[in-house]
């Protein structure tokens, strides 16, 4: 078997194992949360019989291990159960919210990733000169300002003063793509500003590290232009650390956008999770946790696999 297949399948197996461990943690974590779901559904005035009935109905009397495996097997088949608070199918509601979140994350990533890498290359090309300092300064500032503040600043200036975009990013299925994009323009802008700095700085650092190599000198002595040296010779050898930080930021775009969603009233996963945590709707919280864990682990697994594939020694063994 090709060694790369072995390595990649190892990564995937490890990822699945990790996801399993995460599911145990999520389940155990929600188990030890204080409070009683039946009590919170029925309220303080519920009779003991009603509580007992509800617990039996919800399966809360089963031993935790049984409940865990019931939940896990359900989840593996796409059945995440029903929300305790409103009886809706969780997979259904979650799916829509996840779709919205991914829509937002996708457009933020499409803009942020190429931009970050391009700015990183540019910073290396003009290192320690004014373009480098300007790029570093601006991206550092954008990452240092809290994202809700950037959000409100954009709302104030772009939405309220200039009136270019709506301050509320409500989208629904009947909107055209153009309308949707216009609606999410501001949250996308905020997210781009937040994730840009990390990726750009990592690109810059990773490439600068490679620029010390002897083969960069070879490239320079071939008479290549500065940008070609960086793009053709340095960049391919810096892919692995860059992809790692890109994936971390993509994961952030999916699982860490709660604040931005709240600021722009965007119907995404983050809001969904926060709502249900406050309602103590345990199955929904568990389902959200599992999806977040899967996204995180999945993206990092992709980063690992790309790192393996980008290594010519592994791709083309002797």
């Amino acid at each position, binding site marked *: 078997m090709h060694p790369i297949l072995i390595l990649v399948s190892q990564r995937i197996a490890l990822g699945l194992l990790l996801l399993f461990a995460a599911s145990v943690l999520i389940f155990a974590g929600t188990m030890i949360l204080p409070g009683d779901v039946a009590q919170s559904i029925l309220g303080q005035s519920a009779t003991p019989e009603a509580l007992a009935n509800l617990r039996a109905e919800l399966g809360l009397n089963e031993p935790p291990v049984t409940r865990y495996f019931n939940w896990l097997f359900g989840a593996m088949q796409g059945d995440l159960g029903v929300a305790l608070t409103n009886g809706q199918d969780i997979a259904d509601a979650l799916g829509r919210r996840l779709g919205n979140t991914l829509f937002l994350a996708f457009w933020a990533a499409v803009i942020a990733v190429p931009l970050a890498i391009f700015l990183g290359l540019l910073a290396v090309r003009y290192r320690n000169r004014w373009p480098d300092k300007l790029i570093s300064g601006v991206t550092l500032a954008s990452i240092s300002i809290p994202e809700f503040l950037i959000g409100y600043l954009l709302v104030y200036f772009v939405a309220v003063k200039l009136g270019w975009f709506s301050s509320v990013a409500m989208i629904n299925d009947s909107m055209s793509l153009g309308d949707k994009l216009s609606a999410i323009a501001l949250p996308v802008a905020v997210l781009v500003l937040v994730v840009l700095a990390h990726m750009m700085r990592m690109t810059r650092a990773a490439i600068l590290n490679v620029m010390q190599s002897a*083969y960069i000198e070879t490239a320079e*002595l071939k*008479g290549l232009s500065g940008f*070609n040296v960086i793009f053709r010779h340095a960049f391919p*050898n810096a892919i692995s650390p860059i992809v790692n930080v890109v994936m971390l930021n993509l994961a952030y775009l999916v699982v860490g956008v709660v604040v931005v969603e709240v600021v722009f009233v965007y119907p995404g996963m983050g809001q969904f999770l926060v709502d249900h945590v406050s309602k103590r709707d345990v199955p929904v919280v568990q389902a959200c946790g599992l999806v977040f864990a899967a996204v995180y682990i999945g993206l990092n697994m992709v980063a690992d696999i790309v790192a393996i594939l*980008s290594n*010519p020694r592994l791709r*083309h063994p*002797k």
Partner: protein
Amino acid sequence: MADPLLTIRNLKIEATAYPPGEPPQDITIVEGVSFALDKGRVMGLIGESGAGKSTIGLSAMAYGRGGVRITGGTVTVNGRDILKLGTREMRKLRGAEVTYVAQSAAAAFNPAKRIMEQVIEATLEHDRASKSEAEARARRLFATLGLPDPDNFGNRYPHQVSGGQLQRAMTALALCPHPDLVIFDEPTTALDVTTQIDVLAAIKDAIRETGVAALYITHDLAVVAQVSDEIMVLKGGQMVEHGSTDHIINTPREEYTRALVSVRSIEHTEKAPSDDPVLRVEHITARYRGTNFDVLHDVNVEVHTGQTLAVVGESGSGKSTLARVITGLLPPSEGQITFADRSLSTALAGRSPEDLREVQMIYQMADVAMNPRQTVGTIIGRPLEFYFGLKGKAKRDRIAELLDAIEMGNGFIDRYPAELSGGQKQRVCIARALAAKPRLIICDEVTSALDPLVADGILKLLLALQKREDVAYLFITHDLATVRAIADSIAVMYQGKVVRYGPKSEVLAPPFDDYTDLLLSSVPEMRLGWLEEVIAHRKMESAGH
């Protein structure tokens, strides 16, 4: 006569140095160097490290490595002053008119790209040929340079071919654009002697066939004597002597050139082996964890008290692995090690402090074998505390004694490694090993990273110390000249096996086995025409068989 291809007049090159604890200062690296090189001629630039050879070579491409700046003089290539070119013109010069072969091709090739892509890149960049034409050229060069399967060689990645092949591919890379001038910067220094000779012959053939001019930079006079028409000797950034190769080799005028020519003046008569070896290695077979082949196979050698066993072989032959086994860093899968009268545990954890004290090690790279943040005194003092519990004045006195022994003196006690020269660093490492009063010191390529004259000094010092302290050396090296200079007995290693072993006089006397013969005949000799003789001889032999 036509104008010379390359003219360098009164070259001055400076750099900024950052001495520790002092403000940065400008230092002059090269000064007052002038020469001219005609089309199709090969000129050797020779000198020790720091002589400015590479710096002068790169100035022909108007390139300064790191913070190096060309601050004076003129460099004319094909009639125009290249120091006055704009960025665009400069790029047309580099990689087209003048090309460069780096010392370590393994580092100079981009690991992420196929060899062919890199070999023809400059040719395409400067529109010197179409893609198919350039690839055809590259394949012809691969064939000229004796690379295996020239038609498909370029499809491989750098890590898929050997160091010697990569060095030849680097030459192809430099010749592909049909340049007027190639700068060879120590192109064979990183190679084994057996590989070096092939690469050298290949380079020489390629130069002759393409009629290109070349600057050949090396510290090895015997090597440059084989390829160049004329030689310039440099020292400390200034020209010492310049003349035809014949003149420099056979009738050098300057004292310094004579020293370079006659280096390795050590006379060492071999001692007869004693009955009780200090170290006996028996039936050692070893492999690295996670691999499934033996790096060492049934190795048997002895080192006698106060004598030197030289272990010689090319890279990958298992020399350094043997050292790791003896020091206990790599437990062998079979075999035993006897030290003096006692059996040594093959695992490091099973050895007593006394066992550890009696076997010390000196490494190839003195630079990385010392903590850069410790002073010389601390470095040498550490084994004194550790093994003998010396403190205060007793320790200081012993350090001073050791510094005397390595001919450096007490003034160095508070210096940091960064303030020492390469030879001085290696001397400090020797003192550190001696501090433990060992009975055996393993020297792993201790002179390989040093200039010939400096290496000579180190070898003399080691011999003197051996006489005084009665310490035995296991001397690992790939350099046969070093072996001749210091060994009492020799073990020749090839692919993990000892192929020849015995007293020096026997090992270095015929009849030879095939490998030892190849090894011995590959060591460059300092006379003109040596390379042709060896190649012709080998061709005749292979035809005869």
